[in-house]
């Protein structure tokens, strides 16, 4: 099912996406919120068969990133050409933030690009970073959305700006078709294989992600590693130790732009939503506590995990490219 805002029915990107899904039923709506923001929806049920919603994004399209979100840049922004993603990671905060599991794609890329260009043009000494994978996976629907195919060349012409594409997918074909700009970082999120297998439904396994990274590295792309969130389970030390061995066996440090890690944290209200959605999930039954409105692992356990993973990672990568995220990286839910 594809819901299309009446206003973008004849937008070239709408027509292109609809052409790629010839068997999907098209239903028009006035605004995407009529479908996406309605009460009485079950995120869990909708994940069985998420629909696609094509819409126009209004208002501020590019927003300051939450404090702590970044890899060393002076000015950090995020923008979302899409809401939700086709993967089903049990720890994902989007399940707590949105009422619907449908995928919203904002087709007015040109408006996003105009706003980004305006921010870059501002008289500022500091370089600006733009993160695209905050409310979605940057590449998972690339064959459909052609997001990277549109935004990477756009950023290539903006030398004072950086773009981070963040993903768990292996959809790199459109990137392989273009020359890698020096100011675009393609970052992959990882949890150990044991965690991926049980908590990251529909995602490619760790090894396949590493293969995709290696292909990009061969072409000269700058890569990022994101070990965020750190997930606790019996045997976590061994799991993360094995993960780091696996990753750095496949990837040379010279191809890495940055490595970051962050503990598992959720705003309290998101956590309670997730707990209600998945009362049968061991992840939410573990040693968690609420600290100032953020639910995370018990502070001693969290510190132990961050310390261990930091030590292990610094055995593989130089400190200059390592960016631990020590504070919760969530935007204001009111935004």
């Amino acid at each position: 099912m594809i819901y299309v805002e009446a206003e973008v029915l004849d937008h070239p990107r709408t027509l292109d996406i609809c052409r790629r899904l010839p068997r999907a039923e098209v239903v028009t709506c006035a605004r995407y919120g009529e479908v996406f923001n309605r009460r009485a929806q079950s995120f869990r049920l909708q994940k069985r068969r998420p629909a696609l919603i094509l819409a126009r994004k209004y208002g501020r399209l590019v927003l300051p990133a939450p404090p702590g979100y970044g890899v060393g840049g002076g000015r950090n922004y995020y923008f979302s050409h899409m809401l939700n993603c086709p993967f089903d990671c049990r720890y994902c905060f989007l399940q707590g933030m949105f009422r619907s599991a449908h995928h919203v794609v904002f087709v007015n890329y040109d408006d996003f690009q105009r706003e980004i260009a305006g921010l870059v043009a501002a008289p500022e000494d500091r370089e600006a970073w733009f993160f695209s994978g905050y409310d979605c996976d940057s590449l998972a629907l690339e064959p459909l959305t052609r997001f990277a195919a549109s935004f990477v060349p756009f950023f290539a012409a903006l030398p004072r700006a950086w773009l981070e594409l963040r993903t768990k997918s292996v959809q790199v074909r459109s990137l392989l078709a273009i020359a890698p700009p020096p100011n675009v970082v393609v970052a992959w999120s990882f949890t150990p294989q044991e965690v991926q297998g049980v908590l990251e439904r529909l995602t490619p396994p760790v090894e396949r992600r590493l293969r995709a990274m290696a292909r990009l590295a061969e072409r000269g792309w700058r890569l990022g590693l994101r070990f965020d969130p750190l997930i606790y389970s019996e045997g976590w030390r061994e799991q993360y130790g094995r993960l780091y061995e696996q990753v750095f066996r496949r990837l040379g440090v010279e191809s890495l732009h940055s490595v970051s890690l962050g503990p598992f944290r959720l705003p309290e209200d998101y956590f309670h939503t997730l707990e209600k959605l998945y009362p049968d999930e061991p992840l939410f039954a573990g040693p968690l506590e609420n600290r100032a409105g953020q639910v995370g692992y018990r502070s001693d356990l969290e510190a132990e995990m961050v310390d261990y993973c930091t030590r292990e990672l610094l055995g593989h990568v130089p400190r200059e490219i390592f960016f631990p995220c020590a504070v919760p990286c969530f935007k204001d839910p009111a935004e």
Partner: protein
Amino acid sequence: MLRFVVALASEARPIAGRYRMRAAAGGGPFRVFAAPGDDAWLIVSGMGKAAAAAATAYLHLLAGGAPGRVWLNVGIGGHCHGCEHCGHPFREGVDPAAAAVARAAGRYRSLAVGDAVLAHKITDRGSGISWYPQLVIDSPLPAAAVLTADQVEREYAPPWVYDMEASGFFPTACRFSTAELVHACKVISDSPAASVTALSVAAVEELIAGCLEPVERLAGELAGLARGLADLAADPPGYREALARWHFTASERRRLQRLLRRLAVLAPGSDGADGAGGADDPLGALAAGLNDRPPAAPAAGLPEAPEPPRASSLPALEPASGARPAARLLRALEARLEALPVRLRPAAAPAP
């Protein structure tokens, strides 16, 4: 699990027959039918969206008021058979966008009398408000947009299926259930070539009877989802027994429920042999253990290896040591949970 809302008695009869329903609760404002075991209920609302909304709310309460049931509005609807045949102009009045996209994409579905559809969009002609029933299963029926009119439709401008109840039914039923479990199914009964006024009671019965098989399949699949959601929302093992036995304040009740749920997740089906105070009889084991020692301090109070749960369950907690039994039990549960390892399990499909 099933709640049917229909407008006419002639629409009700085939459904009531299929589910072996009998008349229930005589003397009320609506005719109601129910199947043995409370598994399926049906209400005859009468025509119009206000009647449909009132009947939906009435049936919800009459059937016990439990949330999360499957709600189906089944009835007849009007539709233009296709412009090339009836010569009807392709009017772009009510939802020109929908008409345009259907026409441009060649997706305009020509429906014949007797065809049944499931609404993917319900628009109230009076207010212009639209709702979008969420389909998360393989539908045995094709989908179409339904326009709810206040009066009998005579023009049938495509691409809509015209009815008089869906926009009253849908938002009301969504107050009592989740949108994925609420649907409207319409059987084409009239068109510019076949007036609704010429429809006999027997013809309506026949039309509804003709779509019962896919409706039943749809209802069955949705009922499976509803049961899954109900299981997830069920009280954890031991919860009701504890409330019956000891006094908990409102906040303690919430805490107890959460702790027992966590215990059921972290030590599923444990027989207590691992000292976990397993999920089958968690309180029995903990309570038995607590009576043998002073109350546990909040941080350090790990009851060691409680005895395996017993069939008799829930021994009395001695109040002599000061703390209320309920509070002691909660502390012991918390301590027990601290000691349990987190073993992640293979991801369940998103279906409940």
